[in-house]
């Protein structure tokens, strides 16, 4: 059995190819189809093929644990000549690497991707521009799959950028709406900061490993993660430890941009402007997972230094708390879930930083399902009542039973209540960081923040559930009468509910758990314990207790249709306002943008308009003028042409007979 499935490994490239094909078909023929929805079914088909193949490959990896299967094609090889900028030459490689990391991601991305596509069929039918939507969504999925399967750093970066571009298009899908257009720009620009850092990191690695010393030849190999079944850079001593640390920080910067970690987290909540399906895909499976996956890949195949790790832990731990605190007070259902994503990503980053890469991916895995579930359920609600304001909803439990149960399962999972998926992975994250903190006391403050977040998480998500679903009727009577969503929407919700229940337990199936708990020897970085296996009842009890307290608090304040209003004079009021205003970061950014950046940019615009543009236009005019004048050379008179030939001959003769002998540098003298 395992042999049969691992025969699929070399064909892994078909996984991203299927949605790419869907993209091409919809892009070329989408608008020419008789009914625009057909494009949607093409996209669903592409995602389905990708899912079947992806899951089969992942199962194959489970059955032959800890193996690398690399298949790559050098599409451009430049041989080196021993000196110069690239003495060993370099290659650009396209390939697929099937290993435990990518197997986990394959399951996450293809399953969630397929379910979101299916959900879209029901959700998007009212919208214009359907072919564009399905084409972009297919390309988005394909890019993420290309990234997941990338077997070298440059390919990783290429697809990373593609993912960014697709997210720009999709967040700004309703481009006629100014807020959507600006959210798309914001997402693109903020993640771009991360992208630039990522690229700088690649350059540093290139410099460290490609030009000289040990590891030389990494560039010639095409920046491969593994070669001959072992990580390429395993055990390669680093010639310049400081530079290596800096490169690791650059990778952290890249990951922080894509995975919305502090301080690059502002874009994600605003990215809610896209269709809810896009939010589900971005938040659960594609875009934000890419950052965490980058950290995982670097930690496994290249390695972080202790300084890097501390900073990663700090960023992750702080973001966890920071984002959760903002989720406490917001009224927009999608925004609450969005903050929760940022917060949960913080947990993953925290675990990877503490050295427990596989624990971080475990949480990524379970989170993908319950977060997609929460988003799709929220999408079904928005679809039904046409508002995103929690304070207008209420009592939806009765009219949307499946959706309300789905949301509840997602909420329980997010709160870390056993036996739902989130419990196991969150417990592993907290436990592993606790274990790491024993030898790294600097981790303690971030562990405490992470524990505090458990309480807040349970509180804010149940506040949302109670506001939307409990009570007798909507608080705003003008809302349209809600009804349960069509099957294309409920089926994904039901499937994801099932996954949100079992995804955590799956890890106890030996083969499946093997992906996460692959024994020592799989992960090469010396001194880093790959997985966390011991569990402490005390720690689990603590986190479950915090979660239950959060739920209880939410029930007391918001249950059964209650609306808790904070007295204007309350001492907590300033804090609430601070959180609603997103710690004034957004306002600060806006102020900074308007006052500082705008002033500077007006100056630069002046420079650009009069000096740079002036120069460019000057050149343009110069060349145009030159072009017009020089065309007279092209007289159409053949004798003129013959004259040019003779002039050319004369120039060569003068050069060869008179110039060359006079100058030793030209071989004369």
């Amino acid at each position, binding site marked *: 059995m395992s042999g049969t499935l691992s025969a699929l490994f070399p064909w892994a490239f078909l996984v991203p190819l299927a949605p790419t094909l869907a993209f091409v078909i919809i892009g*070329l*023929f989408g*608008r*020419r189809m008789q009914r625009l929805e057909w494009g949607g079914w093409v996209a669903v088909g592409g995602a389905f093929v990708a899912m079947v193949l992806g899951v089969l490959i992942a199962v194959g990896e489970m059955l032959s644990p800890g193996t690398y299967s690399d298949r790559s*094609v*050098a*599409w*451009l*090889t*430049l*041989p*080196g*000549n021993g*000196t*110069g*900028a*690239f003495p060993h030459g370099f290659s650009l490689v*396209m390939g697929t690497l099937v290993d435990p990391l990518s197997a986990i991601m394959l399951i996450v991305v293809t399953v969630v991707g397929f379910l979101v596509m299916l959900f879209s069929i029901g959700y998007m039918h009212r919208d214009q521009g359907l072919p564009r939507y399905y084409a972009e969504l297919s390309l988005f999925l394909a890019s993420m799959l290309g990234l997941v399967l990338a077997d070298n750093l440059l390919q990783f970066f290429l697809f990373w950028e593609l993912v960014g571009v697709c997210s720009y298009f999709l967040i700004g899908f309703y481009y006629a709406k100014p807020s959507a257009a600006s959210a798309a720009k914001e997402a693109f620009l903020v993640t771009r900061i991360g992208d630039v850092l990522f690229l700088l990191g690649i350059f540093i690695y290139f410099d460290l490993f490609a030009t000289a010393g040990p590891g030389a030849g990494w560039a010639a190999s095409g920046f491969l993660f593994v070669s001959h079944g072992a990580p390429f850079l395993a055990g390669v001593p680093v010639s310049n430890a400081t530079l290596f640390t800096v490169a690791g920080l650059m990778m952290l910067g890249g990951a922080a941009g894509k995975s919305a970690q502090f301080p690059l987290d502002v874009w994600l909540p605003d990215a809610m402007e896209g269709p809810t399906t896009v939010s589900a895909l971005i938040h659960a499976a594609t875009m934000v997972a890419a950052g965490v996956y980058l950290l995982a890949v670097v930690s496994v195949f290249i390695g972080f230094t202790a300084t890097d790790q501390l900073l990663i832990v700090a960023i992750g731990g702080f973001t966890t708390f920071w984002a959760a605190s903002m989720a406490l007070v917001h009224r927009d259902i999608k925004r609450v879930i969005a903050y929760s994503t940022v917060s949960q990503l913080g947990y993953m980053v925290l675990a990877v930083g503490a050295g427990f890469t596989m624990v971080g991916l475990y949480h990524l895995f379970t989170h993908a399902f319950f977060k997609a579930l929460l988003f799709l359920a929220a999408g079904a609600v928005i679809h039904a009542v046409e508002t995103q304001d929690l304070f207008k909803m209420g009592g939806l439990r009765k009219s949307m039973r499946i959706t309300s149960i789905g949301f509840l399962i997602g909420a329980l999972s997010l709160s870390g209540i056993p036996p739902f998926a989130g419990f196991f992975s969150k417990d592993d994250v907290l436990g592993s960081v606790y274990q790491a903190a024993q030898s790294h006391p600097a981790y303690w403050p971030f562990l405490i923040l992470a524990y505090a977040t458990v309480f807040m998480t349970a509180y804010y998500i149940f506040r949302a559930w109670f506001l939307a679903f409990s009570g007798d009727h909507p608080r705003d009577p003008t809302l349209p009468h809600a009804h349960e969503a069509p099957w294309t929407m409920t089926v994904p919700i039901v499937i994801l509910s099932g996954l949100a229940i079992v995804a955590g337990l799956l890890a106890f199936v030996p083969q499946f758990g093997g992906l996460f708990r692959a024994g020592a020897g799989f992960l090469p970085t010396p001194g880093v314990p790959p997985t966390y296996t011991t569990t402490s009842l005390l720690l689990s009890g603590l986190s479950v207790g915090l979660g239950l307290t959060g739920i209880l608090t939410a029930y007391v304040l918001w249950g059964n249709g209650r609306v808790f209003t904070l007295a204007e004079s309350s001492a907590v009021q300033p804090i609430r306002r601070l959180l609603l205003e997103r710690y004034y970061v957004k306002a600060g950014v806006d102020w900074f943008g308007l006052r500082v950046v705008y002033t500077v940019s007006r100056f630069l615009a002046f420079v650009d308009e009069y000096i740079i543009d002036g120069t460019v236009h000057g050149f*343009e005019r110069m*060349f*145009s003028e*030159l*072009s*017009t004048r*020089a*065309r007279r*050379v*092209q007289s*159409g008179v*053949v004798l*003129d*042409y*013959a004259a*040019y*030939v003779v*002039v*050319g*001959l004369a120039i*060569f*003769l003068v*050069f*060869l*007979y008179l110039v*060359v*002998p006079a100058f030793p*540098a*030209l*071989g*004369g*003298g």
Partner: protein
Amino acid sequence: MTAIPWTVFVPELFLLGAALLIFLLDSVGFRWLEVFGGLATGGIVLALLAVLADLRFAPLAAFATVPANVVDAPWSQLGGSLVAVTSFGLVFQAIFLTSALLVSLSSLSRPTKEKGAAIFFGLLLFATLGMTLAALSADLIFLLLSIEITGISTYLLVGYTRRDPRGLEAAMKFYIIGALSAALSFFGASLLYAAYGTTSLYALGTTVVYLGHPPLDGATSIALLGYAFLIVGIGFKVTAVPFQAWAVDVYDGAPSDVSAFLAGGSKKVGLFGYFLVFLVPILFAGRLATAPPACPVGLCVTLHPDFGVPLQVIFGVMAIVTMTVGNVLALQQSEMKRMLAYSSISQAGYMLIGLAVATSPAIAGALLQIFAHVFMKAGAFLVVGAVAGLGIGSKIEDWKGVGLRYPYLGLSFAVMLLSLAGVPLTVGFVSKFVLFSAAVQAQGWFVWLAVAGLLNSALSVFYYARVLRVMYMERPEPRSAALPSGAVLGGSEPPLLALGGIGYGRAIAIGIAVVAIFAFGVYPQVVLSTFQNAANHLLQAL
């Protein structure tokens, strides 16, 4: 001493056979364009397969007709042979045959009643035959004669429609300048023979030319004159500045298919000639630094001051001037074919970088650029022919809305222009990338060649983008003659593959070019490794 078997001429025999068959059928009064076209295409395909087999491409390697030990045999062991088989030459043969294939496929869509179909396809085959022969030469006279076979055939091709005065005028100009250049080339060859008593390219190249203190000795001064004449005579084919002026009038006046052939094929013969005549002295000079020169013909005028550096300077300057002049002149062009002609001149400048740098990666890069140019430029001329056939004018502004009305032609042309501009994912990007990075890798003043190339690429985007804007952003005037009746813009989407009566042969040829631009842009290593091997083997064989 390696014996050359007759089988090296198998591709040529296919071409010759097809041509003779066509003339035979024509002489017995059989006039059916499709049959002539089919024969020509078949002959070219067979020849191409034979060449690919000799290049040892995987599934065809079993059919190779040339023994492996003959290919890339060291030139020092050729003796007096007129012919040598190099993978470098084979690659060129494949390039020539590919461009001939595109043209003959496309010409299948010419009007069936047209007279002179036999002459057209026959001449096309003869021109191709001349090019493939040139790619086998080891001797200067053999090389120049082969180039002349191509030359004479193409003069006739340009003017073969007879009724079209523009074609006739173009043919006349082409012929006059061609005759002048041929005269200079042969005069140069005879001067070299006078100086050194040989016409073998290897013997000539390895004869160290003394450039030291004037006065020069007699043999050297004569030889220098010979080399200068050859630079001019062959430069005419390359369309290197200042020998480019004819090309604009001729590409413009000739039928589009013939322009495609001139740009895609016959220009490359000139480049091949440049490489063959001048690479040996350049390389040999480079080797002098370490090893004392061998004296193959006993006429060496000794010593170390070498002829390589001035040659490299000449070709380097020529490269920069050619690409710049081509691009600058293209900027203000309003005629589509003239714009493409100038662009073709500038592309020749990029290719010359390979000769100036003369390292293995640079030669491989030049080969890739030459290869890419077939699909980009010949393809573009074929599209122009198709669009002209639809009754659309020859000015760029006549192309308003073409991209929307004819999605297939518009998209294809856009792809070709983007590739010419060097946009990633197209073969035009990869070829420039490889070529420029080879120049950077070679360091020294060669880096400036890369800089000039990059600046020129940026400049060229101006005029390519202008065409794209006209095709897609601008609406044609209502009742414009450019659009056939029934054209409704902005209504329903036109079917993607509406070929609009451009003919299947032409549509297929254009499709091949577009697919190749993408395929080799995404996965260039398929051909690049062949080119890199060819360049390496050439350097070893010389």
